C-alpha cells in the first residue's frame, strides 16, 4: 500500500482544484475516505453502510468538485455533503431497524463500530445532542471553528459557546467522578 503521509492535505486539495484530474482526486480519496467513513461511524452508522455512504459522498464531491475554487472551502463543503448524505439516508430509512440515527439520544452508547467503553463517546455522552455534534466535528473530524460554523450553518460565536459549554460540563463531570484522595 502506498504511504499516504507524503503531501499534505492542503497540497492534495490544491492539486485537485488546479488539475481536476481523476488521478489528483484518487490521492485526495485516499486521505478523505477514511475520514468520511469515520464521520458516519461516529454518528451511529454500521461499518458497511458507513463505507457505502462515504463512497457516495466522494463520488458526489468528484462530480461536483468544479463548483469549488477556494481551497479553504473544500473541507467544510466535503463535510457538508456528508451531512446532507446522512440526512438523506435518515429520511429514507426512518423505519429501518439496521440503521441507528444520532437523533436517538441513546444511540451513542450503542455504536457497533466502536468499543463499548470508548472514552471519548463516554465523555461527551453528558452533553446535549447539539453539543455532541460540535465536539465530534472538533475532536474527531478535526475541523476548525470556522469550518464547523460553515458545516452546521451556525455563527462562529455559537460554535465557540457550544465548545466552551461542552468543556465546562465535561470538566464538571470529570470532577464529580474523580476518585477522592485521602
Amino acid at each position, binding site marked *: 500500500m502506498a504511504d499516504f503521509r507524503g503531501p499534505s492535505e492542503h497540497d492534495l486539495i490544491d492539486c485537485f482544484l488546479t488539475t481536476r484530474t481523476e488521478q489528483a482526486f484518487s490521492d485526495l480519496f485516499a486521505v478523505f*475516505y477514511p475520514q468520511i467513513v469515520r464521520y458516519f461511524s461516529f454518528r451511529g452508522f454500521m461499518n458497511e453502510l458507513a463505507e457505502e455512504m462515504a463512497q457516495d459522498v466522494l463520488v458526489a464531491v468528484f462530480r461536483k468538485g468544479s463548483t469549488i475554487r477556494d481551497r479553504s472551502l473544500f473541507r467544510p463543503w466535503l463535510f457538508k455533503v456528508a451531512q446532507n448524505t446522512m440526512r438523506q*439516508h435518515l429520511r*429514507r*430509512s426512518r423505519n429501518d431497524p439496521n440503521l441507528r440515527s444520532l437523533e436517538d439520544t441513546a444511540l451513542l452508547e450503542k455504536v457497533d463500530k466502536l468499543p463499548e467503553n470508548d*472514552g*471519548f463517546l463516554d465523555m461527551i455522552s453528558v452533553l446535549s445532542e447539539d453539543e455532541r455534534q460540535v465536539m465530534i466535528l472538533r*475532536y474527531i473530524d478535526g475541523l476548525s471553528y470556522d469550518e464547523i460554523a460553515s458545516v452546521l450553518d451556525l455563527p462562529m460565536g455559537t460554535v465557540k459557546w457550544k*465548545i466552551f459549554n461542552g468543556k465546562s460540563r465535561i470538566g464538571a463531570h470529570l470532577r464529580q467522578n474523580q476518585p477522592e484522595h485521602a
Partner: protein
Amino acid sequence: MKHCLSPEMWTGFLDGALSPNEESMAEAHLAACAHCRLLATEFVHVEDVLTGAARQAKERAALEPADIRRALNRFHSQIRQPRGITCCLEALRFFLAGMLGTSAGGKVIQAAAKQTEIDEAGWADFIGRLSGMIADLCGDGAGAIVTYIGKLAEPELA
C-alpha cells in the same frame, strides 16, 4: 459554572488565538481571579483528556490500507459508469430500501453484482439477476419493477 471571561475569550485564550491586547487582558484577569485560575487549569485538563480520548477512538476506528484500496477501486469503476446506470442504481437502492430496509437492500444489490461488474456490458445480466432475487423475496410485482427501473438505463447504453 461562573466565569468572568466570555466564552469567546476563554476559547481564544486556551487556543492561543487572542490578539496581544486581549491576551494581556485575559492574563491580568487570571492573575486577579482565583476562580478563573482554577477554571483555566480545569479547561487545560479537559482539553488534554478529550484530545487523548479522541486520538484513541480514531486509532480504534482506523481503516486498513486494503479497505481503502478496495474503496478506491470501487470509486474508479463507479465514476466510469454512465450516468444512466448511476441514476438507475440510485433509484433501485431507494426502491429496495422501502421494500427491505437500507442495509438489506444494499446487500441484495451487492449479491446480484457479485458475478458481474455493474457496467454497460454487465448491466442486463445484473438487472436480470437482481429482478429474480427480488421476485423471490418480495413477489413478482417487485421483481417487475426492478426490471422496469433497469430498462430506464438502456437508451443511454444503446
